């Protein structure tokens, strides 16, 4: 059995090493490929499967062991570059945009307790917001006398960016009562919303 040790190698190197090794072994021989990163493992697997190779994968510690039976043929012309997908790291870019001081449509008093419960649940959930934006009457949630102010301060202290619409504070004449976050403008707010991977509008 031939072993290809591609540990520590980045794409396309493991693909090139695999292709070369497969050209060197006999029809009934098994090739073992060692890879220590998941992206390369997936790329190599896809490359082999597309060329009818039988693969068995085992993970030992941090190392993926691909056992390949040479059941197919890899033509010399096969290009490895197209199998070299670099995974874009998943960025947490969740933005929550409060556009009102209540949640949903219906009874006002219900909407008001629902929004409080919503805000107070934010520190509990696993999907952590990157930015929280307050617009229009949503700004009332971010004022000093808001019943969720402590939770919002807690979120801000843990690294969540909080932007509050300056025009809205001005309109409601609440600029002096702001209790959390940074007074912001439409440029910054639109920038955050458009760069978000997802936006939640409570």
């Amino acid at each position, binding site marked *: 059995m031939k072993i290809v040790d591609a540990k520590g190698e980045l794409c396309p190197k493991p693909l090139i090493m695999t292709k070369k090794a497969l050209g060197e072994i006999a029809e009934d021989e098994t090739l073992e490929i060692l890879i220590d990163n998941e992206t390369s493992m997936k790329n190599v697997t896809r490359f082999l499967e597309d060329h009818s190779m039988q693969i068995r994968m085992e993970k030992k510690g941090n190392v993926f062991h691909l056992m390949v039976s040479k059941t197919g043929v890899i033509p010399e012309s096969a290009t490895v570059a197209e199998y070299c997908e670099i995974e874009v790291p998943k960025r947490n870019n969740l933005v929550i945009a409060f556009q009102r001081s209540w949640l949903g449509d219906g009874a006002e008093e*219900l909407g008001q*307790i*629902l929004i*409080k*419960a919503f805000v*107070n*649940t934010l*520190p509990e959930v696993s999907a952590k917001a990157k930015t929280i934006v307050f617009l229009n009457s949503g700004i009332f949630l971010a004022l000093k006398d808001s019943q*969720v102010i402590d939770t919002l301060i807690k979120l801000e202290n843990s690294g969540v960016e909080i932007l509050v619409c300056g025009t809205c504070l001005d309109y409601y004449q609440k600029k002096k009562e702001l209790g959390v976050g940074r007074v912001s403008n439409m440029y910054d707010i639109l920038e955050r919303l458009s760069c978000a991977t997802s936006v939640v509008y409570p």
Partner: protein
Amino acid sequence: MYQPVNYLILIFQSTHHVLKAEKVLLGKGLKIDIIPTPKEVSSDCGMSIRIDPDAFDANMVTSLLEESKIDFKLFKKWMK
């Protein structure tokens, strides 16, 4: 990231009780949080009230709500 606190949690039979209790407690100057009822509690009502035990003790909260004839259950929960 957040320091856990052993909160007092008040559970009610309906959302209307939650609203009434909120009014009573806020009227007395207590600082309370409306939260979704914790998952481990079986309750017909999805909303609960959370109180920081350092600020107000359970006896005080209990007597305020009993005065107003609001049924509730009280328990403690460590929360972030």
